[in-house]
């Protein structure tokens, strides 16, 4: 059973190995002659005023929360789709009700303008 995941393991191993290999090749053979001026941040010719990190707009937060909610819905859809054939009409209806409730949430979201980027 667990053996069927072997290709994924292989994939993981190759991906990790390749990633590490390529980066270390660069480290090994690349020429690096740095000085202070070279590695300092460049901002139109004068000294950097402050950190290059910028605060994210708080509006992303609402988007992320709404994304989580709809992502959780996917977590329910996933096992449902696997067994839908065995469940038959009953499964279809129960998921229909579930999605219907979330669609109401979606209408609310839309109408309130939560999806708009002012």
């Amino acid at each position, binding site marked *: 059973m*667990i053996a069927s995941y072997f290709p994924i393991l292989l994939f993981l191993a190759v991906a990790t190995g390749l990633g590490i290999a390529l980066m270390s090749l660069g480290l090994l053979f690349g020429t690096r002659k740095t000085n202070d001026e070279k590695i300092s941040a460049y901002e139109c010719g004068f000294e950097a005023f402050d950190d290059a990190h910028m605060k994210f707009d708080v509006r992303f*937060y609402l988007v992320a929360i709404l994304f989580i909610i709809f992502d959780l819905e996917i977590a329910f859809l996933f096992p449902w789709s*696997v067994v839908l054939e065995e469940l038959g009409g009953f499964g279809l209806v129960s998921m229909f009700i579930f999605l219907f*409730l979330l669609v109401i949430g979606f209408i609310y979201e839309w109408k*309130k303008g939560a999806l708009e980027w*002012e």
Partner: protein
Amino acid sequence: MIISPELFQQIIFYVFATFTIGSAMAVVTVKNTIYSALFLVLCFFNTAVLWLLIEAEFLAITLVLVYVGAVMVLFLFVVMMLDVKQAKASQLKQSYTKAALLIAAAMLVQLLILFAYKLSGEIPSNELVRQEQGYSNVAEVGMTLFTQYVYPFEIAAVILLVAIVAAIMLTMRKREGNKQMDASKQININPAERLRVVSMKAEKATTQAQSKEEES
């Protein structure tokens, strides 16, 4: 030399368990909060592999799908929104360290108790029940969820709906003085509402004429 499947699984377990612990340590020791959030992602991935090893596939998938996919995104957003400067070790309050040590000690004691139980044989033996080829944990969860627990499942939908409403109600703000364009409003505009054409009678240029006369 051929490695037996059991040994192979054990090797995989120890490799990924090491990564899990390592990345978990990194989460709390790394100074940059964004790195620490990314290490948490790595930790979740490794945990997902460990869960796969005990054939809890649905949990593994959910961990990647929900936690890595959504919750960690929210974490990163929050970290970036708050603009946390790199914390210095001295800034961490001493009391937190003490509390953390206390919790860690409590967990260690729990683990030791568990080991003691295990050694004394009070916990029934440890062999995992291995399922046959073609067994699907996800299908099993699906069958239980959509037959036995269909009522709680629908309540879960209502809870999600309430979460949507609450999140929007509490965080949505209409900004004042917003000059955003609304295409549908622009198209639907009726010239009659905007512009009023007033018909006026023509008037004689009396005042000008009078002033000219006065000058002369």
